[in-house]
């Protein structure tokens, strides 16, 4: 029986993702397109929010993936710190720009949604503030990766930054809630009260959430493959010089 840890072997990872990546990538395109087209063209206007309700199909999935990307980076960093699997560190590196873009989408769609609904582009609301802080943490993480030349040192340092950053992100979130009571509505999808958002919106929303998740996975796989190739190339060039 093959173990999950076999995928920590770069060769095995490359072999598997060779066929897995196109599958994930194409399903990401199909599912996201389905969700967004369904959401954009075939949902009714909300009686209070008008057509702006259609922004939810971008806002909620991107916000969800912005947080999940950081959690994935945290797990991958821990795996690297504990088991020293290079693929794990490289996957964390590949995930960061995707998380950054997801945060940007969530912030932008939130701003254009907030303008007509709350009458302002930006409010120092706890959720918005937390996302801005998350954005800064992504920037710092990516900048640290970019600044360090030795890949193993970079992996170690960014892993520690990710762990410490997670603690401070949670603290900041708590601080932001302490500091201002917000305008933001509560979670629009929660397990207890399934009736808050109508199924006409929920179905395409779930589809786009799945689509964004698939986009994230596809990009992380592609990015990790690129990082593995770059590392292999560096090793080969170094060997060439030695010879």
């Amino acid at each position, binding site marked *: 029986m093959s173990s999950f840890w076999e995928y920590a072997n770069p060769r095995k990872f490359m072999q598997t993702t060779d066929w897995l990546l196109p599958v994930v990538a194409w399903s990401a395109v199909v599912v996201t397109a389905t969700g*967004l087209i369904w959401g*954009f*063209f075939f949902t009714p*206007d909300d009686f209070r929010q*008008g*057509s*702006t309700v*259609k*922004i939810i199909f*971008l*806002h909620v999935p*991107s916000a969800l993936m912005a947080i999940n990307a950081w959690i994935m980076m945290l797990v991958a960093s821990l795996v690297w710190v504990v088991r020293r699997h290079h693929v794990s560190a490289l996957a964390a590196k590949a995930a960061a*720009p*995707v998380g950054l*873009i997801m945060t*940007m*989408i969530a912030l*932008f*769609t939130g701003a*254009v*949604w907030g*303008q*007509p609904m709350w009458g302002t582009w930006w409010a120092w609301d706890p959720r918005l503030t937390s996302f801005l802080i998350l954005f800064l943490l992504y920037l710092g993480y990516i900048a640290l990766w970019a600044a360090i030349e030795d890949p193993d040192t970079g992996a170690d340092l960014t892993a520690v930054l990710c762990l410490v950053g997670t603690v401070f992100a949670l603290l900041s979130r708590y601080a932001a809630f302490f500091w201002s009571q917000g305008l933001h509505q509560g979670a629009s999808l929660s397990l207890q009260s399934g009736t808050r958002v109508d199924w006409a919106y929920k179905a395409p929303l779930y589809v786009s959430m799945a689509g964004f998740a698939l*986009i994230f996975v596809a*990009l992380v796989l*592609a*990015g990790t*493959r*690129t990082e593995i*190739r*770059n590392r*292999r*190339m560096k090793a*080969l*060039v170094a*060997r*060439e010089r030695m*010879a």
Partner: protein
Amino acid sequence: MIPELGRYATEVLSAYVVSLALLGGIVAWYWLRARAARSQLDQVEQRQERNE
């Protein structure tokens, strides 16, 4: 073609356009980087095979 968006048309359309542009941007960036890495690695590997 485009559904009636009422008075919020600008907001909704700009949200979709910008989000898709951002997604498209990062997909294109990852794609180009992947292609560059693949071709460079192929070059180096071929060169080394010749030398052996």
